[in-house]
Each structure stands twice: as C-alpha cells, then as structure tokens.
C-alpha cells in the first residue's frame, strides 16, 4: 500500500493533502482520528500521529481539544500555493530533462502542450 521510498508518515500527510486539494476533505471538516488511520493502514498510531503533527505544523490541520483534528480554514489555498511554488521545479524541469535525454526537441513538447491547451479551450 505504501511506496517504500518515503517515510510512511509523510505519505499519509501527502494523502490527506491530496484529499483536501481534490475537495474530498472540505475545510473545517473533521479528519479521521489517528487510531482510525492507524487501523486502516495497519500502522502504529504514533506514526499516524506524526503525519497529523506535520500537517498541524504546516497550518493545514488544527486540533480541537477533546474532539479531534479539523481541516484549517484556507488549507486548500495554502496547499495550492505550496504546490504551485514547486510545480515547475518538480514537474516541468524533470520533464524537460527527460525530453533532452531521449532527444525529443523541446519544440515538439511545446507543440503538444499547445494542442492540449486548444482542446481545453474548445
């Protein structure tokens, strides 16, 4: 279930972020408890708690005493900003590098993107 390449807690945090971005988790909505996460993913609750802590530190979740974890107001905006900041370095740059490595002219890549843009505009 988990990708071996990054720590489990980071993968859980990324998954929750993904749910917030896609709208599956709404702002001000309660998130499942660490125990529910732990039992679903079959991991120690402390590991799940670490994912939650990371999201609290980033301002994505906040804790209501005695009730549980909630998605912060503006969490989606924060995540969109974070993702946009690294979009070019994380996705476009490696794509360009890959295209160069296999000798696809950048013009061809740009042409492909333009076609996609036209289709979207239709």
């Amino acid at each position, binding site marked *: 279930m988990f990708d*071996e*390449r*990054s*720590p*489990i*807690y980071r993968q859980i945090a990324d998954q929750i972020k993904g749910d917030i971005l896609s709208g599956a988790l709404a702002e001000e909505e309660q998130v499942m408890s660490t*125990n529910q996460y*732990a*039992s679903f993913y*079959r*991991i*120690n*609750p*402390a*590991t799940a708690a*670490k994912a939650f802590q990371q999201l609290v530190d980033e301002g994505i979740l906040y804790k209501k005493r005695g009730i549980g974890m909630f998605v912060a107001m503006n969490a989606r905006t924060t995540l969109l900003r974070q993702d946009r900041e690294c979009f070019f370095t994380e996705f476009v740059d490696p794509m360009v590098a890959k295209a160069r490595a296999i000798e696809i002219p950048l013009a061809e890549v740009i042409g492909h993107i333009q076609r996609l843009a036209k289709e979207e505009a239709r």
Partner: protein
Amino acid sequence: MMTVETRDLMLRYRETTALDGLSFALEGGKIYGLLGRNGSGKSTLLSVLAAFRKADEGDILIDGEPVFENPRVTRQIALIRENVDVPDTDDKIERVLEFAACYRPNWDADYAARLLDVFELDPKKKVKELSRGKQSALGAVLGLAARAPLTMFDETYLGMDAPSRYRFYDAILDDYIAHPRTIIISTHLIEEVARIFEEVVIIDKGRLVLHEPVETLTARGATVTGPAEQVEAFADGQTILNERQLGRTKSVMVYGQVTDEQRQHARDTGLDLEPIALQDLFVYLTNSKGDAQ
C-alpha cells in the same frame, strides 16, 4: 502504563554470557520491537523480565517494582514463548483457555473465542495434536486475550504461514489501539512487523545497541544513489554502512543525521535519496566483523 526498567543486568550460562550489563528504560504504553541476532540474549531478557528466571546481577523494575517473586507484578505480565506453555499438552484448547481465564485477571473470554476463529483453531482439539503453526497461534490467543498490562511475545510466529502471521500482527495492532498497554515483540521477521512498532530495542551479545523510536532511527540514514563523484561528495564525513557500484553509478548507505538541507541539495544535484529499511539498519548495526550473515 507499565514501565520497564533494567539496570546492569548480568546473566551467565556455563560458558556464555547471555546478558552483559544490559540497561534500558521503557516508558510503557507502546509497542516495542526487540531485535537481535540469534544468541543475542533476547529470549533470556524476556524470561528475566517475566521473572521466569533470575538475573545473576542487576535490577529489573516493572511498574517501579522488583519483579522476581513479586506476584503483584507478575500477575500483570504475560510472556508467550516459542513453545506454548500449557500445563498439559494432553488438554484440549478449551481447557487451556479455561485455565488461562482463572489466572489472568484481565482475561477476555469473548475475545479469546473470536481469536480462535481468526486463527482457525478448533477448541476441541488437544494441544499435542496441533501443528507447529497452530501451537504458535494458540500462543498468540493466550497472549492477546490475557490483556496483560505487560505483554511479551518471544518469536511467537514459528511455523505460522504468512496469512496467519499477518492476522497476528493485525490483531496485536487492533487490540493495542482498543486497549493500550505495553507490548514487547521479539522477532527476526523485521520487515513484516516493523510498521506496528513505535520503538525498537536492539541488543547484541547481551548488550544494548540502541533504543529509539522507529521513525527517528529510519530517518537517521539514507541510501544515496547517483553519479559516483556526487555520491562520494555527499557521503564524505558520514558513517557508511554499505556501498555498491555499478559502472559510474554508486549507491551508498549512510548512517547519521541527514538534514533537510542536505536532502534538498542531494535532490537538486540529481541524487536519489531513499530511506533505509529497518531490517537493513538492523543487519548493519549488529553485523560484527568476521561473522557476516
């Protein structure tokens, strides 16, 4: 929560020193993995923690009290050893469970019955008629349903097939979530069960190698792969556990603090960083010279 503390434990068998000045402290309420190679002293340690055996020297404090010949404390401890401890292997499983219900103060009979189903154990069967794997499964049932504040499993998986082992790990995790307590699991099958550990205690030759949260431990190292020159530059000054080279590509396992900046720098320079699996760390940390596994 049941705390466990040992101070300078020594225990010698005729010619071998099984425990050699072992000290550690567990704050309790967690699932601990006890890892060590064959003959590292794991089973001896668990036996002295459960007061099945007395250490030659040193102290053990369970819940702050000495454990040996202290029924107030030993009643709170369940140790499941490799060979199921039952009074008479001629007894049927149902009789063994009735007996456990008498001397285990927190015994949950309904839960025990559910676990028999989980492990496909027939209560009418005699213990001596069980296969190795089913005997281990019975041990798992006895250990879990006891709900002892200090529960210890000493390689309680021998002979179990993979599906049964995973059912066992799931049962431990679920029951721990529902009834938090101190659980110590000694094992060789580290990869399978690592995800349910919160902390690990690694011992070697009767001594403590380390005691740390799993996340801290695995974050302490990384496998770095990329062009040899860049990898060497990255690994410079770090403890290197293992290195491999294939043509110009080099892969190095480093152990030590890898900062976020270093990780970022590595990624920016085209190096690939992967976490080290607990099992690999264990192998390198306990692999003394001359007797590689």
